[in-house]
């Protein structure tokens, strides 16, 4: 039993840190460290940079063009990205649809879709949720009817993250209404430029447009875009869920945000406020305890032993900690968190800032925005159901 990384792992970390430092635009990193809104270019530019290095798909096996890193190396890379203030790698392409294509796609589909994901050129989004089906995904109603070499898709998806920028969407669609609700679902890739696809961005409570409604009105999708077998989509979606790993806890970003919280407390002259400081200390303990959980999962993966069955715990705790970090940051600012000045959220504020310090501008919106973390990706209530199922049957 050992908590230290090997010399090789430490050398690896130095290497990726150096590379990131050399390639990450400091202006973009500054936005990340300040919690400002990121543009499409901020996100995709960095994805392309990583793609050119072969590191965007850093969790992929070598056989599909990944670097073949160990779980610990993947974690160290993720940590280096987080601490450097790199924009997030959107999971929809490399983390979500790619493993399904690798596992269940044809060689043609793999050659057609994977390179664009690995390079960061093609922006993917996820079409699962529908207005009537949130936690109850199996009740989805968007239907795809076979018409020769095509499917005709009709229906509506919602909560589709960043679909307004997306080139492709991977969807769960209903291809049969027979049997149990789960059995009639298929996994279909759809070009967002197809006629009949309409995207409406939804304004969120923090003023940002992060999710969308997507309508399909007689959209013709080539049957070649079906992954695996018709009516087996539920199996593939479950495979994808089981594929989610330690990074679901997002602990590296929590560590970065804890540092930011401490910087803010110092800058605002509240570092010596014992009451506030106790709350920061309690959160520091939470984050260390979460990291130990993550490291145990990683170590189990590395040693080839069965991974700990605690993905749901990681999701619950990680999301709660993200929310608490944002909550405390807002409370550090106090009433100075109240001005809502859009340009200050984008980092484009140039005049004297009437709200004290523009660094405080993103704090409340972020607190509002992060309420989503205990809702999406399977709400924390659903996650507790999963944990209980494991414990009690």
């Amino acid at each position, binding site marked *: 039993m050992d908590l230290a990384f090997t010399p090789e792992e430490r050398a690896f970390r130095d290497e990726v840190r150096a590379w990131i430092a050399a390639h990450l635009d400091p202006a973009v990193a500054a936005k990340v460290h300040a919690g400002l809104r990121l543009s499409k270019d901020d996100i995709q530019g960095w994805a392309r940079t990583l793609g050119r290095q072969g590191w965007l798909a850093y969790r992929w096996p070598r056989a599909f063009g990944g670097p073949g890193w160990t779980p610990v190396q993947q974690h160290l890379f993720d940590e280096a990205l987080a601490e450097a203030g790199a924009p997030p790698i959107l999971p929809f392409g490399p983390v979500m649809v790619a493993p399904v294509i690798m596992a269940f796609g044809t060689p043609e589909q793999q050659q057609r879709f994977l390179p664009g994901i690995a390079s960061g050129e093609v922006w993917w989004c996820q079409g699962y949720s529908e207005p009537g089906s949130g*936690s109850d995904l199996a009740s989805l109603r968007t239907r795809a009817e076979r018409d020769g070499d095509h499917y005709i898709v009709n229906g509506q998806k919602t909560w589709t993250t960043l679909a307004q920028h997306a080139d492709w969407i991977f969807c769960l669609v209903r291809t049969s209404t027979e049997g149990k609700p789960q059995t009639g679902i298929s996994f279909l890739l759809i070009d967002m430029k197809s006629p009949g696809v309409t995207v409406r961005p939804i304004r969120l*409570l923090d003023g940002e447009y992060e999710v969308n409604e997507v309508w399909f009105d007689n959209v013709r999708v080539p049957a070649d875009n079906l992954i695996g077998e018709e009516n087996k989509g539920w199996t593939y979606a479950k495979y994808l869920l089981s594929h989610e790993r330690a990074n679901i806890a997002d602990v590296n970003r929590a560590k970065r945000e804890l540092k930011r919280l401490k910087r803010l407390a110092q800058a605002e002259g509240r570092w010596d406020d014992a009451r506030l400081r106790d709350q920061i200390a309690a959160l520091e303990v939470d984050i260390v305890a979460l990291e130990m959980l993550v490291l145990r999962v990683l170590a189990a993966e590395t040693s080839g032993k069965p991974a700990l069955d605690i993905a749901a715990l990681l999701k619950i705790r990680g999301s709660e900690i993200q929310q608490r970090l944002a909550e405390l940051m807002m409370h550090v600012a106090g*009433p100075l968190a109240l001005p809502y000045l859009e340009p200050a959220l984008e980092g484009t504020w140039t005049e004297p800032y009437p709200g004290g310090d523009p660094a405080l501008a993103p704090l409340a919106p972020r607190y509002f925005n992060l309420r*989503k973390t*205990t*809702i999406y990706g399977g709400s924390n209530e659903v996650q507790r159901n999963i944990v209980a199922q494991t414990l009690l049957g």
Partner: protein
Amino acid sequence: MDFDFSDEQMQLRDAVQRWAERSYGFERRRAIAAAGGFDTNVWRELTELGLTGLTIPTAHGGMGLGAVEAMVAHEALGASLLLEPLLPLHVAAAVLQHHADAAAQAAWLPRMAEGTLVVLAHVERHGHHRLDACTTTAVADGATWRLSGRKHVVPAGDHAAAWLVPARLDGALALFGVERGAPGTSVTGYPTQDGSRAAEVVLDNAPGQLVCRDGAAALAWAQDVGIALVAAQAVGVMDRTLALTLEYLNTRKQFGVPIGSFQALRHRAADMKMALELARGMSMYASLRLATPEAQRRQALARTKVQVGQSMRFVGQQAVQLHGGIGVTDEYLVSHCFKRLTQLELTFGDTLHHLGEVAARMTDEAGVAA
């Protein structure tokens, strides 16, 4: 002991509710927020209802009503998620009534009853909820004073005719009136997180009138009145938030049944009800304690802000959570309730600050009467 509302109080509540239902729906409110957070037509309607003069003595043209009536009105206004600065106006009126001399009262209160906005401008950078954290200075200049300093998050500060400004005069805190537009004043308005309006006020040797020399007492009074009104509004917001949530739980279906049939969510709803009822009791406590001697009053109001703050945070967060995705959109009312509750928690001192106040004021005694 009596917690019933009188017929007059219920009529007042009904009048505010009727106005809000008829005239302050979701779409109008959203349009006002999008336009900057202050609507002069709404303000005129509120004035015509007599609400601007609600607590101002009849001798000065107001309705001359008391703390309980203010609570009743603000609970109903809270439920409407009112953006316009009636709460700050009532705080300023309370300060003038209790701490200004007769001439100043006669000069301002009648105008305020008729809708002229005067607001307290006391938040400074690095103030951290502490009332004594004031770096704005005042120096005598003949019969008047000159003020220099910077005040933040002044409610609808760019729509106010004047600001009540705490400043250090010979080291001690005093309270001044400064008219907007006077030489040496500048004001920058902006929207706040909940869609209402605030402003930065910069004073550079700006002329001010002395409202009172004991600025600390006036500020403490302002904060305590403010907490009572915040508590009342909070109860109104939470009441509505819980109702929205209950309706959603009984409407939204997943797995073929209303999600309100899941025990974990049912217990959450029960805990929200608990938070609401605890806050409601403390809102009454606050209003009924405003008239007690200062030590008792401040202890009571600090306790109130702690309970109401905890309740607001829990109810707001859980309402969003129980709504799921729709809870984090701008398009549905519940997120606006949540943001309003958040903003109220940060107003007149947050929960942690007032916990410190309670701890500092703790005696050997216990209970409401202590």
